[in-house]
């Protein structure tokens, strides 16, 4: 019965009409990776999306297959760090954090100190590193904020650091200054955390 269920899932992934944008060999290889991921309980949708991104951007089949294989491996590493209860968005964000240079230990520590979902905290960690903040500084800052800060507070922190960097501050110094200066008023909330009806910028 389990084998039948797995076969059914395999067929579903292989017959996903979105994958028709790939050439037959690439489609087959991507479906195989997605099936393997699904078989061990990893989310399939990020793998599909990565393949579609490659197809739309005109990447070669080999490049697309390499990308989805790497993503599947990283999703597995992320789940090892965050545990089996981690959601698909959390795993995706954890992959970004890992690729940015965060260690699985930092991810596991974050899981211990912050109530789920961890998606925003993990993303802010990844985005800080993408802004030039050293991975260990970014990890330490997010871990320090994680127990109390709301998602909106974390985004405000990231924006403040990015603004300081854009004005010429060294990334590591900008992070520690913002952290120590209490730029976040995590207990009372920040003004920008607000109006859910109004579209916000990314």
């Amino acid at each position: 019965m389990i084998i039948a269920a797995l076969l059914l899932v395999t067929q579903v992934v292989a017959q996903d009409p979105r994958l028709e944008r790939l050439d037959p060999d690439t489609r087959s290889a991507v479906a195989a990776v997605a099936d393997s991921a699904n078989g061990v309980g990893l989310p399939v949708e990020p793998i599909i999306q990565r393949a579609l991104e490659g197809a739309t951007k005109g990447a070669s089949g080999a490049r697309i297959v390499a990308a989805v294989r790497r993503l599947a491996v990283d999703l597995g590493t992320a789940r090892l760090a965050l545990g089996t209860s981690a959601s698909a968005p959390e795993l995706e964000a954890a992959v970004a954090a890992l690729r940015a240079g965060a260690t699985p230990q930092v991810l596991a520590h974050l899981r211990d100190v912050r109530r789920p979902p961890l998606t925003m905290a993990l993303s802010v960690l990844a985005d800080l590193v993408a802004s030039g903040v050293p991975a260990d500084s970014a990890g330490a800052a997010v871990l320090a904020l994680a127990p109390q800060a709301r998602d909106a507070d974390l985004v405000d922190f990231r924006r403040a650091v990015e603004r300081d960097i854009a004005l010429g501050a060294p990334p590591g110094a900008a992070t520690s200054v913002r952290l120590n200066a209490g730029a976040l008023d995590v207990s009372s909330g920040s003004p920008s955390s607000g109006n859910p009806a109004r579209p916000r910028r990314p």
Partner: protein
Amino acid sequence: MFEPEDETVERLIQHLRRPVAMDAGLDARVMREIAQASSPRRRVWPLPWSVAAAAAVLGAVLVARPWARNATSRADTLQFVLIAPQAASVSLVGDFNDWDPARSPMQTAHGIWATALRLAPGRYRYAFLVNGVEWRADPGAPAAKDDEFGTPSSVVTVGGRGS
């Protein structure tokens, strides 16, 4: 010039202030109706039934976990903007629309291209496709550093709480 209207208003007030003759038994009837309507209809459930009902409600809440659904289904509306005065067309393409340029064409006003999307919680990679050929990252959003396809992308994260 308002005096005639004032007189009319005054007459109306005088009329309304005249006492109204009421049935002498009205009070008694009203009080009797109130007494009947408010008499409590007590229905005492046997203890096991009330315990079972409470357990059923608690069980339903625990199974449905409305707080968990709330945490994960909190969508957010985001506005994507690109300033591209020379562009003839701009599409927003990303994980949220299967990287299909036809799904989210952007509208322009004086070279400012914009569109808004409602996104469920998650981390999304995206980019702008200008004139159908040129990929551009969003200058107002974090860059996707793990771009494996040789063109720039950005990321946006919709959190599950307080974002």
